[in-house]
């Protein structure tokens, strides 16, 4: 894959052209990855200040006692969106529901380990661990196979 970067002062915005011999899953993934750079989620930080988090920076989203939290590499934000809304909105960005209360960005997953009660523990790039419930394991497996 070749990437050419060209500066053009006449352009008002960044323009990206993807040329490919044949449409494939990789092309779709590149498109999704590029789109995700521009995709942001409106959140609130600890002080209640409104901030915008890039979808590609999100590791996982968790619902705790009716509150939804967005976890990035080293920060946690609160959001007003509901978990199911995230599940729909972020599906094309590599996010998958891994339990009743958590949606994970599969691109941040490093490995998994089987644990008690047929659950799995997923290790993320930042060293955090999240639990994959057994009812969601086959969905994660299928999704990863699709991403290959």
């Amino acid at each position: 894959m070749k990437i050419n970067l060209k500066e053009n002062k006449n352009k008002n915005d960044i323009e990206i052209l993807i040329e490919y011999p044949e449409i494939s899953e990789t092309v779709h993934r590149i498109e999704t990855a590029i789109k995700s750079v521009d995709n942001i989620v409106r959140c609130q930080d600890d002080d209640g200040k409104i901030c915008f988090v890039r979808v590609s920076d999100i590791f996982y989203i968790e619902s705790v006692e009716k509150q939804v939290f967005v976890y990035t590499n080293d920060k946690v934000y609160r959001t007003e969106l509901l978990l199911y809304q995230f599940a729909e909105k972020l599906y094309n960005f590599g996010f998958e529901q891994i339990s009743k209360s958590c949606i994970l960005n599969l691109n941040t997953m490093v490995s998994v380990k089987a644990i008690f009660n047929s659950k799995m523990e997923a290790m993320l790039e930042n060293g955090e661990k999240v639990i994959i419930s057994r009812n969601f394991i086959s969905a994660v497996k299928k999704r990863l196979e699709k991403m290959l």
Partner: protein
Amino acid sequence: MKKNIFQFIKRLLINTLATTALSIFLMCIVAIIKGFTLMTLVAPFQILLVNSLAHIGFILFDKINMKYKIINYTVMLVYLIGIVLGFGFLFDWFAVNEIWIVCVVGVIVFVLAITMDIIKINRDAKEINASLDELRKRKNNNDKTE
């Protein structure tokens, strides 16, 4: 969400039917060893009921996160023995079989089910890790090409 509920019900049905079949098979072996030639028509349904209740109970125990696996397994086993004894007396199973034989069959089914479950989950974890490795390899190759 509906997909997950369907998945949950499907898994519950498969597990219940599998352990019921195993229980009936083991009880048949016990019956043959003891020289019995007949089995009552209601027995398989009684076994199915006990197995269904066992699985429903296990799902409830699943919600309680105990610190040590061994405690969780022990609680599940005590619950299983409890319902086997309770329904055994109710259905009069101990008139033809000794209590310990029925309990041993229950424990064998429990151990086999847990073992199968562990094997399956480990296999799934292996497959997921293989997919993650492959994704990483492709990403690294792409990075090198760039």
